[in-house]
């Protein structure tokens, strides 16, 4: 029935327009009209001098691209090998590893940067434990790229492992039968078939690294390494506030992301990557045999660098009586946890607010992403490309600018009713910011699934909604679930948009932690982070184990 399809297209398009196009349009208007926030359309293009008369812009643009390139390369180095292993082989404790590699998303980037600083700087934890420091290495371009990579590499891990599961071992088996060695089969068959997934995850890494602020702000300022996003934040936090200049800077980032999207799209669609035609395939993964231990050691090494060290620094800091007291047993003190459990239940309120927001965001983004993926990959309409491209933008817009766009759009005095001023506006912003993950993952996954299954179902008499529910959704489920976990993890600690949009009196985990840092109680901020990470990772682990018990074929992975 075309009516159902039209309805779905309409709903998905409306969601994208309201959530993304609307704030983006207001940002563009603000970039053009400096007085737009005050309702004035005077002096159009007055801030254009920012693009033409700014000698540092070129350096900032170069630095931004260099950093993004380094972060993409680093994410491949850290994420690709373990992603391949996880996707093709039976890894002991696979689900546990998945949760471990979600932890980098649970740590707000600025806290990760502080944790690394406190570990590596002179007289930091490394020095206190081992007698030497790596401050010189940390405060360099390589150091910034390293810390940023550790925030992002799990994107590649999840995309590659899910995508390879989709490819399965059937084609490789055919290659082996035809005489190819295992490495040849992997390089020529399996890896190329997972290119959409890898390209999609690299696009997100690119877009996130040009937008990410916490790491450059904490580390790059000390190296004189200036990127576009630091300039944008300065315009928004430095008096007098320059909304227009910040919006103009964001336009550059959006253009970069769209360009990257075009490249990714070209890579992913110039040939067919269909790997699932509907023939029954064995979902048994290959055994590693004697290679099990080395593989596990690789997982452990990546986890040690990417997860254990920053996490240990955070937990250790939260239990220190004084920072200047250092790592000494007589300096061990749990008193900084007291304000979290006291304080009139504010911390509990923050945890609850972030918890339900993260859950709602995960569900909302997954629902929209499933619809968008089906329309983009399976549909025929002309707006498909626009829809796809639109969904990349939020990743490239600095969260603080997107938040300004949301305020401009939703706080208009002409609206009879609005969500602005309620906690629901955070759901709107989170959904917009995080939509790119499930959409990229779902689109990449669907490109691997041939249309023969849809056709078979249609021939068997199933209407399109039924095909969607019983064929496409179960096939997309592993990627969607992986994306939902990412979304849940990031939304549970989102900071920048929350600061700008949370109604007065409402706190989230992110704003709670940030205000602790601002007040100078580093330990209480770290204590709240520790609790939030523990709670969230327990939830994610429980969900993962529950999925394992369901064990359904569709949920493999």
């Amino acid at each position, binding site marked *: 029935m075309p009516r159902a399809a039209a309805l779905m297209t309409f709903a998905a398009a409306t969601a994208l327009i309201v959530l993304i196009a609307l704030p983006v349009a207001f940002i563009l208007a603000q970039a053009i009209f400096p007085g737009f926030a005050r309702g004035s359309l005077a002096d159009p293009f007055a801030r254009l001098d920012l693009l033409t008369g700014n000698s540092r812009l070129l350096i900032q643009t170069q630095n931004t691209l260099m950093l993004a390139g380094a972060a993409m390369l680093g994410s491949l180095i850290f994420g690709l090998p373990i992603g391949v292993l996880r996707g093709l082989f039976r890894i002991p404790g696979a689900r546990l590893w998945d949760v471990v590699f979600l932890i980098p998303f649970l740590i707000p980037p600025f806290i990760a940067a502080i944790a690394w600083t406190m570990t590596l700087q002179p007289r930091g934890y490394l020095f206190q434990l081992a007698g030497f420091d790596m401050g010189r290495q940390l405060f360099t371009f390589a150091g910034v790229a390293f810390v940023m990579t550790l925030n992002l590499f799990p994107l590649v891990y999840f995309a590659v492992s899910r995508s390879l599961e989709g490819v399965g071992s059937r084609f490789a088996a055919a290659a082996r039968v035809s005489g190819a060695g295992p490495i040849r089969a992997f390089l020529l068959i399996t890896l190329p078939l997972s290119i959409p997934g890898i390209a999609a995850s690299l696009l997100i890494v690119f877009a996130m690294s040009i937008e990410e602020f916490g790491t450059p702000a904490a580390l790059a300022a000390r190296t004189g390494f200036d990127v576009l996003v630091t300039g944008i934040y300065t315009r928004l936090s430095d*008096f007098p506030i320059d909304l227009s200049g910040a919006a103009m800077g964001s336009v550059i980032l959006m253009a970069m992301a769209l360009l990257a999207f075009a490249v990714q799209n070209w890579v992913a669609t110039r040939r067919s990557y269909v790997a699932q035609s509907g023939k029954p395939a064995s979902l048994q993964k290959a055994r590693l045999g004697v290679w099990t231990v080395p593989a596990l050691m690789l997982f452990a090494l990546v986890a040690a660098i990417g997860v254990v060290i920053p996490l240990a620094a955070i937990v250790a800091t939260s239990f220190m009586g004084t920072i200047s007291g250092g790592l000494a047993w007589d300096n061990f003190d749990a008193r900084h946890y007291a304000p979290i459990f006291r304080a009139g239940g504010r911390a509990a309120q923050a945890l609850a607010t972030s918890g339900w927001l993260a859950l709602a965001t995960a569900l909302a983004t997954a629902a929209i992403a499933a619809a968008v993926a089906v329309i983009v990959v399976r549909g025929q309409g002309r707006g498909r490309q626009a829809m796809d491209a639109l969904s990349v933008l939020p990743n490239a817009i600095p969260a603080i600018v997107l938040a300004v766009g949301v305020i401009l759009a939703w706080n208009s005095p002409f609206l009879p009713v609005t969500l602005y001023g309620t906690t629901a506006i955070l759901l709107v912003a989170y959904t917009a910011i995080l939509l790119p993950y499930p959409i990229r993952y779902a689109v990449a996954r669907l490109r691997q699934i041939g249309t023969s299954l849809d056709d078979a179902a249609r021939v068997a008499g199933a209407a399109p909604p039924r095909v969607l529910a019983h064929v496409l959704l179960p096939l997309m489920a592993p990627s969607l679930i992986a994306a939902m976990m990412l979304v849940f993890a990031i939304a549970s600690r989102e900071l920048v948009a929350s600061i700008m949009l949370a109604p007065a009196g409402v706190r989230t985990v992110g704003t709670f932690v940030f205000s602790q840092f601002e007040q100078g109680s580093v330990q209480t901020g770290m204590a709240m982070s520790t609790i939030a990470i523990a709670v969230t990772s327990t939830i994610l682990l429980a969900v993962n184990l529950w999925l394992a018990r369901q064990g359904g074929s569709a949920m493999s992975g």
Partner: protein
Amino acid sequence: MLRTFTLTAALALVAVAAPAQTITLYTAGPGGLADALAEGFRAQTGTTVNVFQGTTGQVMARLEAEAANPQADVVISASWGSARDLHARGLLMEYLSPNAAMVPDFLKHPFYVAQGISALAMVWNTNSGTPRPAEWADLAGPAFRDLVTMPDPAQSGAAFDLVAGLEAAMGEGAWALLADLAANGMIVPGPNAAALNPVLQGAKAAVFGAVDYISYGQAAKGETIEVIVPASGTVIAPRPMMILASTANPDAAKAFVDYVLSDEGQRLVAETWMMPARADVPGLRPGIAETRVIEVDEDAVAARRDEIIARFNKVVLGR
């Protein structure tokens, strides 16, 4: 049908449950203070205060983005210049609280008044193995080679005021001092907290120009740091409190300003280790009378802001 009903019922509930009065406060830190003031005010008047707390920059960015439909009633910022700017744009309501009688004249204005005051100081890690600095210039000496941090004037209004103040007091000597500090390896890592943290852990030995009350508080909690105000003088950073002209609740907003300037409100301010705005309320630390304050011509400095920051970037950051 059902949905309409639910909506109506929910709206009715909200209407019934809403307290008689609610005001919204946008404030720069410290967050514990804003919450304590909100609770104390509600206990006295029954009016609920919804608090949004961020940095001065975040507060101002939010005000700017909401300009078409302002949400805040009362604003407390950490930068006197921001109040002057909002007033110049006609966004503030005139109100001089009767409780402001004991606030020194230079800390009040018909449209805004100080809530509390911080000063800029040196913060020195007593375990750093360096000699105790007494003057700003000591930090440019060989004992502090590669061991000094400073908040970025572009990101911290107080640090900007310090640069402007030193220039007012020392003329070109201030720029020579900053150049010496830069040559001595001083780093400028970001806003106030970013400059302080390396000194707490001992990676660096001293902050040049830290906001003092945070460090007083940390020293009281056992951190091995000392707040040192040079005898040659420093600048102060009063925190302006103001009512937006767009407020729908002028009476409640005025009552809140009165409360912050009351004995009880000023005592809460003093507990954060700031100087209370009222001269007759004792602070936990040296007050204005014990500090040699460098006077700064705010108007002249505000007009030269871009020039001063550009010069700082050139002299200290080499760009």
